[in-house]
């Protein structure tokens, strides 16, 4: 029972990161129908941003989160504006391949600059934890979950209150009507991709404390983001959050009771069941 509880807590704590990563992925997918395979590379770049700031100026990784967001937003905006917008209306396969190529480029440039060795960030509070009854909670993981929830809330606020946020939602609903209302689609698409990359970067900075930092660290996050989007339903902030937490718990239980080697298989079996039983996701709307 205690073990069960500990797994549940660990799963929820890890789930916040999955939610933030998936939120960015979901925005890009939902609005532009782009499956962004470079999303994991953006997570990795966020982690490296935190690492560089920490090793050069001793900046705390939590302070690096907004910086990583801004850096990755700029990169994402530029990539969409000057590269992806050229083929954004092509069949899905085209953008899929393009982002795969971009991911290869980014990962290998990082490999060239930083080499392949595993890096890490150790702060004064790394490893500190507290007990809550039978459950042990690491402070860094709790802070990470808190930051992830804050980012998700800010994103929800941005999408519902600001003019740009409303334009994004309008474009998702009906691109033609949005254009007629004066939305500049090329610019808006770039903002959306920038937001997606920024969220991935923020998540990357958050996990720089608890993951080992190396060029291919982002790869698993693409699959997890996809599973979370399918679990939670595409294009909704609450869906990404719920999906992320569920995914975290499923993965935690999977690695505990089935084995660490097959945790991906467990998550993917869950994915298949959801796809078949409820293809619009837990929080999804009727139309996919």
């Amino acid at each position, binding site marked *: 029972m205690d073990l069960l509880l500990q797994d549940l807590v660990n799963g929820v704590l890890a789930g916040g990161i999955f939610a933030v990563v998936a939120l960015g992925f979901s925005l890009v*997918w939902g609005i532009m129908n782009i*499956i962004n395979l470079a999303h994991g590379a953006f997570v990795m770049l966020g982690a490296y941003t935190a690492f560089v700031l920490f090793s050069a100026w001793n900046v705390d990784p939590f302070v690096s989160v907004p910086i990583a967001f801004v850096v990755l937003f700029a990169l994402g905006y530029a990539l969409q504006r000057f*590269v992806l*917008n*050229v*083929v*954004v*209306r*092509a*069949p*899905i*396969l*085209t953008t*899929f*391949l*393009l982002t*795969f*190529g*971009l*991911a*290869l*480029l*980014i990962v*290998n*440039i990082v490999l*060239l600059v930083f080499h392949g060795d595993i890096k890490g960030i150790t702060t004064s509070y790394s490893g500190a934890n507290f007990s809550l009854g039978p459950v042990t909670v690491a402070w860094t993981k709790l802070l990470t979950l808190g930051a992830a929830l804050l980012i998700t809330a800010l994103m929800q606020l941005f999408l519902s209150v600001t003019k740009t946020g409303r334009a994004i939602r309008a474009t998702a609903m009906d691109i033609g009507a949005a254009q007629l209302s004066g939305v500049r*689609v*090329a610019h808006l*698409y770039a903002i959306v991709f920038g937001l997606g990359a920024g969220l991935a970067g923020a998540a990357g900075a958050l996990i720089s404390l608890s993951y080992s930092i190396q060029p291919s660290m982002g790869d698993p996050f693409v*699959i997890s983001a*996809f*599973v979370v989007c*399918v679990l939670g339903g595409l294009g909704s902030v609450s869906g990404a959050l719920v999906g992320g937490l569920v995914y975290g718990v499923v993965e935690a239980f999977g690695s505990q009771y089935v*084995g660490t*080697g*097959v945790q*991906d*298989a467990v998550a*993917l*079996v869950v*994915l*298949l069941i959801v*796809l*078949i039983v409820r*293809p619009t996701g837990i929080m999804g709307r009727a139309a*996919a």
Partner: protein
Amino acid sequence: MKAGLGGITGNPVALGIALAILALLAFVPLLHNGYEENLFRGVLMFATLSLGWNIIGGYTGYVSFGNVVFFGLGAYTTAVMWQHAQVQNVAIDVVVAIVVAVLFAVVLGFPILRLKGHYFGIATLGIALATEEIIENIDWLGGGSGFTIRQVDAFWTYYVAMWCVCVASVLATYLIARSKLGYALVAIRENEEAAAVLGVDATKYKIIAWAISGAMAAAAGAVYAGANGFIDGPSAFAIDNNVFPIVMTILGGVGTVAGPVFGALILTAINETLWSHFPQIHTLFFGAVIVLVVLFLPRGVLWLFGVRNGWRSIVGSFGQYRV
């Protein structure tokens, strides 16, 4: 999209060139050069994988991200036949691998092919990853350490076997494209609802397409395992064997017979050149090649055969999918 590619089988000139190249490749073992044999067996393997992907992803329009699962099943079939049944004959391996792949495709096809678009793609990717993890955890299947397959045949037999598998896949694709099945698949790709209204049993044809697609990949996997002499999870379900065929098919021309062959030839040539001249940054260059192909040649090399106005229409096609 298909119009510029010259009908359902693609441009006939391109097909002729592809067949001529394949005919030339039959003589590679006469060079008695291990490097050349390996290199061109790789080309034939990737051409077969691309042709297999092309049936489901190109003709039927169901973009699979997990066709490597069939390649892996084929490779493991050879390994199991050798390890547990002491059978090592390339032809028998290929036949059994095809049977395994078809059964797998039919059983999983019913739930999976209900899904559309990205959902189908990721479900196939999920199947590939899950199958690899499950196989790696079964000791009877070699577990995490894999199988060593002792080669009893001469090395060139594997080259000849791969050549036969590849040529058979080209011919099968050509015959399928011209048959009722081919037109049904294209109808499903263009508009599944409309095809169903016209009496196309979409579920049946999609499962047949997936099974054929899987059979080609499994045959390539069965030969690969024998030629390689060793099989484990990461080599049988290699990410390269999943992604390269997709890139190659697009580079050559989606939904054509010759496109996948051209794609496999061109990409292997690029990859090999980059590898020998820039080993440090060859993957980086490869990423750049993919980006450039997608931006400047989204309809593949085969499209160039049908171009009427030369450079003007090539330049004019740039940015046609811009917002």
